[in-house]
């Protein structure tokens, strides 16, 4: 799996922000992970410990904001959550082709001191 290399990207971005803001400590790192991003959030937690060790983010709290995949049904003119990645509207059974949310793989926010 490649959660380690993803967490290395997080580390790079976090340390860059720390530098830009002359921070001495990272308190909280919040990631936003969509359910269709192809990444397992809990595997990221393990990678976090390994990758942040020895840096100013070593004691930071990791928060993971999960974004459920949501599509828009033209027929019902409403959004619905994709159950297990199925694009069927729960109301009318129609197939949506418009994903509104769910592919996010982001560093959402940082709390630093």
């Amino acid at each position, binding site marked *: 799996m490649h959660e380690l290399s993803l967490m290395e990207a997080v580390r790079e971005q976090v340390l860059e922000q720390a530098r830009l803001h002359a*921070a001495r400590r990272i308190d909280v790192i919040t990631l936003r992970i969509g359910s*269709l991003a192809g990444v397992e959030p809990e595997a990221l937690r393990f990678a976090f410990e390994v990758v942040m060790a020895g840096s100013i983010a070593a004691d930071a709290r990791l928060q993971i904001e999960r974004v459920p995949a949501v599509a828009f049904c033209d027929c019902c*003119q409403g959004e619905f959550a994709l159950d297990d990645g199925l*694009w069927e509207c729960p*109301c009318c059974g129609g*197939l949506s082709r418009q994903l509104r*949310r769910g592919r996010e793989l982001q560093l959402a926010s940082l*709390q630093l001191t």
Partner: protein
Amino acid sequence: MCVDCGCSLPASPDHHHHDHDHRHDPDPEHAHEALTPAPPAGARLLQLGQALLARNDALAAGLRQRFGAAGLPVVNLLSSPGSGKTALLEALARRQPAAAGLAVVVGDLATDNDARRLQQAGLTAIQITTGQACHLEAAMVERALEGLDLAALRLLVIENVGNLVCPAAYDLGESLRVVLLSVTEGEDKPLKYPAMFGSADLVLITKTDLAVATGFDRALAHRHLARVAPAAEVLEVSARSGAGLEALAARLGLELRTAA
């Protein structure tokens, strides 16, 4: 209008008997609030929303621009290991007129066996040996393309590492994402890997020459595919028998020889 889900069925006592668990997504802001206590004095909260794969995405965008400038269609070919990516490319290669302009960049963890097979079939093939990386990234593709004259090509295929999980997240600058499902993998495979199949522009059902032997239910596979990838085209092919290769070649803008 149903105020629960917004559908147009009239509100009535019968209305909610159907499968209706109102799976509206929870407001992500509320989930976030529950987790975040007020920051201590002296602390700052930076709202960033930065893509983790920003570097890959930027490189991929650069590649997409280069490919576009060269007028070159580029396919990202994805599947489980053993679904028939290389065999399919060999079959297309054997049916092409000479110097038809199909080149392949192929990724594997180890060996250059696939590149050799493709070269023996007459293609320009460049191997990327990733070591431990389970997917290709834009940087690897960019390096592999050094020395290749893109303007001389009609189609570039990037044969990704056999893996239905990790490669999905990595944009390689492709103009078409093609995911394979072989008849030996089972009709419900797409349901098990919704992120990968959901990202496909074109799904190829491969090894159709084995469909009878495996009792493959075509209609069921198509139904499952529609549920996880409603916008994807689906074609059926057999590298071994040649079935469906003409339609595939036409779709990819390749000319095949008319004689066998």
